[in-house]
């Protein structure tokens, strides 16, 4: 029988901050998104105050003042390093791992044949001891069940952070499922939940015992698969190698509203450059590039404008110069003066690996190799000398539009000059 574990960091970004700043322990802490926009991580104390995920910071300022909520800017450099450490530690516990997101991964525990709850506790203690990150472990015979078990382990303290559904009897499992809303199931979003409610399916148990054929007919084969997974029939396999991304997105909110085309040009050049670098790292080329700009929906008093344009490329490329040229052309098509722009972004689409690429027969000969060498050199310099040591000049030198990160913690683990200090 297959057995999966889902291991997930608790309030991951907040926990990362607490590793190097223990003063934050036991205090209400939120981590804000890029540009200090809205809450992307909340400590349990903040959750208890009723702050929802994604709440804009300005909407919770009063609450923050009243309860002393500490707001931190996001420090993705730190989170990525601690995430890598956590995933490496978890790799010690199973030969098969799927890193599902920055703070969660699936482990396959087939045929381990011993007390998996105890194993889960060992995992939990090891990760916490080694990296400082508290995690919860959910174990079940399908990915969907492991995910559900993880939710139980996290929300119900009596489980002590580890929930193995396989250790429950049929009646115990059904009782537990009857106490959980169907919306807690992996892949059941609000819309599906509404449709299920119309079919009188309210709890996880209702869904598990529903007629799978009827579910397929009135919803989709995906939800039917979820029903099978809830019954312990594993339908979703472990994806050990993350498939190369089909789209690469790079966008940021501006530090202050931007009105000028020149500043927008700088921003999209910079985003396109970053996206192109990611593209080359996964050894792919893009067949099209999309650019978009928009005003802030939170500034209701402002006139609103939001527009995007997809520009197909004559030959698929990963050359920053070509991508920037296309994106600047597109930006000029969609730009309208007189608006206070809050965000701009670039998305690379129609990606394909370089290996399968077929040059158009009459492409400019030799130019591709030359550009590939130039890009390789640029990436190498930037990796060696630091981000943006070399960049396309239209990205601008001053970058007025760059985002705010007012209260960002130091990069404790990746920058020798920013090491955490220890009192002596």
């Amino acid at each position, binding site marked *: 029988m297959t057995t999966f574990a889902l291991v997930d960091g608790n309030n991951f970004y907040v926990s990362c901050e607490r590793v*190097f700043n223990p003063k934050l322990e036991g205090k209400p802490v939120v981590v804000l998104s890029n540009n200090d926009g809205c809450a992307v991580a909340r400590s349990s104390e903040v959750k208890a105050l009723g702050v929802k995920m994604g709440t804009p910071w300005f909407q919770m300022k009063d609450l923050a003042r009243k309860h002393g909520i500490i707001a931190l800017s996001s420090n993705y450099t730190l989170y990525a390093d601690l995430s890598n450490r956590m995933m*490496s530690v978890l790799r010690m516990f199973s030969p098969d791992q799927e890193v599902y997101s920055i703070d969660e991964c699936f482990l396959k525990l087939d045929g381990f044949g011993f007390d998996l709850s105890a194993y889960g506790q060992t995992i939990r203690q090891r990760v916490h001891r*080694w*990296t400082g990150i508290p995690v919860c472990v959910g174990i079940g015979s399908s990915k969907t069940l492991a995910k559900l078990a993880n939710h139980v382990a996290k929300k119900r303290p009596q489980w002590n952070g580890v929930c193995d559904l396989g250790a429950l009897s049929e009646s115990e499992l059904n009782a537990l499922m009857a106490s959980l809303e169907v919306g807690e199931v992996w892949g059941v979003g609000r819309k599906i939940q509404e449709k299920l409610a119309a079919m009188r399916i309210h709890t996880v148990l209702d869904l598990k015992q529903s007629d799978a054929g009827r579910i397929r007919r009135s919803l989709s084969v995906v939800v039917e698969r979820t029903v099978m997974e809830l019954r312990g029939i594993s339908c979703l396999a472990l994806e050990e190698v993350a498939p190369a991304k089909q789209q690469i997105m790079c966008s940021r909110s501006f530090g202050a509203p931007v009105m000028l085309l020149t500043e927008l040009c700088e921003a999209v050049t910079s985003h396109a450059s970053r996206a192109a670098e990611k593209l080359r790292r996964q050894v792919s080329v893009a067949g099209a590039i999309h650019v978009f700009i928009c005003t802030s929906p939170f500034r209701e008093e402002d006139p609103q404008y939001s527009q995007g344009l997809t520009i197909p490329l004559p030959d698929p490329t990963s050359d920053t110069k070509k991508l920037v040229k296309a994106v600047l052309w597109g930006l000029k098509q969609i730009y309208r003066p007189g608006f206070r722009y809050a965000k701009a972004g670039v998305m690379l689409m129609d990606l394909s690996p370089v290996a399968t690429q077929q040059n158009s027969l009459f492409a400019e000969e030799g130019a591709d190799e030359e550009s590939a060498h130039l890009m390789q050199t640029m990436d190498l310099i930037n990796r060696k000398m630091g981000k943006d040591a070399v960049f396309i000049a239209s990205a601008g030198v001053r970058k007025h539009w760059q985002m705010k990160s007012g209260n960002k913690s130091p990069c404790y683990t990746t920058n020798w000059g920013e090491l955490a*200090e*220890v009192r*002596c």
Partner: protein
Amino acid sequence: MTQNSWGGPRPGSGRKPLSSEPTVTLRVPVSHKETVVALVQRLKSSPGIRIPSWLEVHALAEQPPFLAIPLMSHSVRAGFPSPADDYIEKRIDLNEELIQHREATFFLRVRGHSMVGAGIDDGDELIVDRAISPAHGRIVVAVVDGELTVKRFFQREGVVKLVAESAEFADIEFKDGQEMVIWGVVTKVIKSV
């Protein structure tokens, strides 16, 4: 029967062939005609180049693409081989020598003077391994009043305390019920001299 010399094909007559080998008729978009002609011309002028398949036409650059060749440890000579060749080893890697558990190891910078007796000075960097369990007598990083603090760990006969290595600093004792959190164990000190 004798061959009649009248009629039939006359040798040397008609359109002169473009190529020494048989040719075929191809339909090419008008806009691409020039390119194809140029390509064929180039092939004629450098007969050494062969095209294995039409897909690889684009590889016919003026200069062939750079080909990386693995570097050998020494050049091949018809003489005495380098006696050191069997003894080549990679250079010392401090990460390997100084770090036992990569995932659990962190660097911290020292602020203060309470551990001078243990050779830990203000401004030094510490290598701290969180995977090692704290034992009596080891130098540890502990959480005291919400701050990371470096001290020697003392645990004997029910007494648990953090001991400073300088007469000017008092030890920090822990009573029953007080929780002491050990953050990690110090394994090395890095100092500039």
